[in-house]
């Protein structure tokens, strides 16, 4: 009956062995899961690079991959919150479809013909994007209301959403594809002209580097002020240097991607740049806008999940719904908000998808829900609730897309891609479950 052993803190008794790699990693307090996923992603890219005889790992290809993953990754950051709070959202693909169609119809039909905003009306793309975001928030909010306040299971509500919203796409467009978006809206989709360019990319890289150092110093100062235990100095420096070099390296890599010669020559003639220099125009594209959007969403969502009450409540509800309720949290309002966030993220992903297509078809966004859930789960989000990270889900989306893109690059057809994607999904989650069980 004596339980004295319980009183001794277990962690203190066994300080991590300094000599082992694992022990050293533990001292840097780096998230081992995320680190493992980065290693896995690197391994996938390396494998394809070897298989393709060194042609795979090039700036152009990596940027294509990243742009292709951006829509799924953006929605996956929201799916983490939904799954963490023990719900699911199956309607994301249909919502992307309906919003993409809305953008297309707004710009080709409603704005010029109903609202009297001709093609030269200023900031049409902002207005369209704003309306799409409002639509996403409303549809998400409606679903969230039915789930949180009426108590219909989220699986059912969003399954209904999946069906009925996809049907609405058909009615919106009368079953036809719509094309011809504003040129400025199309930039959201990326491409050489839809990129921020070399200088801005360098500036962003330097800002990112500075932000990492600033955060590390601020954090250390804060912990010292409160007298908390500090990370060893070597670990701080290591994280700072590795983080900074990574950010600058990624910026340099993006800037190594140049405008296609044909495009550069055409624009040069149009804008009278004069004769092309020796060896042709060398214009770096830098980060495309969808990647900028993804980076922004990832930062904001991570901040919401870890630094705001909303995120704390989502995780608390996922860990123990009763405890959250008893702690006085307005759990229903919290759940509703997760779906509003989802709707907004779907609107952003829909902007990328429709901008890339320069329009919308009936099937835009179809089966996104599967890829998004797969990305979140591969990224370490647990269906049991309460566990998951935003950067993990983004990495998960990149892992899944790097497989699809790499196999496409190698000429493997879609049935083969699907087989691999399915196996990797099960492997990733299986390995994670195994590790957790061993860890606990």
């Amino acid at each position, binding site marked *: 009956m004596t339980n004295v052993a319980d009183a001794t803190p277990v962690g203190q008794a066994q300080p991590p062995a300094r000599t082992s790699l694992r022990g050293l990693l533990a001292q840097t307090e780096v998230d081992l899961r995320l680190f493992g996923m980065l290693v896995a992603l690197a391994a996938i890219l390396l494998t394809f690079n070897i298989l393709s005889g060194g042609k795979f790992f090039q700036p152009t290809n990596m940027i294509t991959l990243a742009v292709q993953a951006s829509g799924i990754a953006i929605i996956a950051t929201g799916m983490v919150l939904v799954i963490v709070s023990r719900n699911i959202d199956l309607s994301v693909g249909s919502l992307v479809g309906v919003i993409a169609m809305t953008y297309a119809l707004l710009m080709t039909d409603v704005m010029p013909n109903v609202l009297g905003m001709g093609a030269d009306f200023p900031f049409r793309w902002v207005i369209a994007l704003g309306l799409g975001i409002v639509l996403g928030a409303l549809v998400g909010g409606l679903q969230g209301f039915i789930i949180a306040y009426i108590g219909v299971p989220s699986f059912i509500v969003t399954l209904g959403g999946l069906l009925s919203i996809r049907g609405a796409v058909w009615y919106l467009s009368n079953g036809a594809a719509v094309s011809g978006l504003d040129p400025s809206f199309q930039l959201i989709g990326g491409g050489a002209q839809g990129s921020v360019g070399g200088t801005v990319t360098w500036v962003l890289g330097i800002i990112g580097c500075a932000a990492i150092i600033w955060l590390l110093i601020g954090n250390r100062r804060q912990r010292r002020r409160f007298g*908390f235990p500090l990370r060893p100095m070597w670990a701080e420096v290591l994280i700072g240097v590795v983080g900074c070099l990574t950010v600058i390296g990624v910026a340099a890599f993006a800037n190594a991607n140049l405008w296609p010669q044909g495009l550069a020559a055409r624009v040069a003639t149009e804008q009278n740049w004069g004769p092309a220099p020796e060896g042709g125009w060398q214009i770096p594209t830098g980060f495309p806008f969808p990647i900028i959007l993804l980076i922004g969403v990832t930062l904001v969502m991570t901040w919401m999940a870890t630094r*705001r009450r909303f995120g704390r409540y989502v995780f608390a509800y996922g860990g123990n719904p009763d405890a959250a309720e008893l702690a006085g949290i307005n759990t229903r309002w919290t759940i509703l908000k997760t779906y509003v966030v989802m709707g907004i993220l779907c609107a952003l992903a829909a902007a990328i998808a429709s901008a890339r297509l320069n329009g919308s078809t009936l099937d835009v966004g179809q089966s996104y829900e599967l890829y998004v859930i797969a990305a979140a789960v591969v990224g370490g989000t647990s269906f049991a609730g309460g566990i998951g990270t935003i950067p993990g889900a983004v990495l998960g989306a990149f892992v899944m897309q790097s497989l699809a893109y790499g196999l496409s690059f190698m000429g493997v057809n879609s049935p083969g891609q699907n087989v691999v994607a399915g196996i990797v999904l099960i492997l990733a989650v299986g390995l994670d479950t195994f590790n957790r069980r061993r860890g606990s």
Partner: protein
Amino acid sequence: MTVAERTPLVEMRDINVAFGGVHAVRDVTIDLFAGEVIGLVGGNGAGKSTLMRVLSGAHPADSGEIHVNGEPVMIRNPRDAKALNIETIYQTLALADNIDAPGNLFLGRELTTRLGSLNDSSMESETRKIMGRLNPNFTRFALPVKSLSGGQRQAVAIARAVYFNARILIMDEPTAALGPAETAQVRNLIRQLKDEGIGIFLISHDIHDVFDLSDRISVMYHGRIVGTVKKDDVTIDEVLGMIILGKPPTEVTRQELAQLHG
């Protein structure tokens, strides 16, 4: 000034709670004074926890009134209760297992920066202070509470109730999961809080605990209060008789008492 003349800290009058056809709490009236510990005892399903859930806002009463400091109040949810400085330590502890100790301690009442972001450093600092008082061995402030021992988790749950200047404290089986050393710690804490003028409802299966700590003892039986007695006026046997037979000592016949011991 005698106890009876003062205004009670809490008074619950004619409280009724039913779950479907089951009448879990019937016409219960109970009061609690500042600096007093009321032991709430009864068999399984007697209605103790349900009655306390009404006071903590976890489950609204179907009918009845609650007065705090003599003023009628409405307690519709845990937020209302907390606003009245009613804090609860649940038997289940009600901790979010995936969140660390400071996160749980401040759950729903987070400290924030001027911009409304979570101020984790302040929360950790405050947690370190209060845990230093409650459980000096506690060091694992950054780990999810899932990885803590039963005693450490209990300490987090107690710290949460104590930190926010509770005036009324509900403790539902606070020592059930603890070893002897920690149990002793909790008992000391209860005495200390009582001296500070906090009113405490103590639900416990351990009749010795109840006798050690309570000023008065209320016995529930099938949803009703059998009686509320001053600890000094009764014996443990008499209270056990009330729990098992559901009658006040004066109504228990010699024969029933004999059967009980037989």
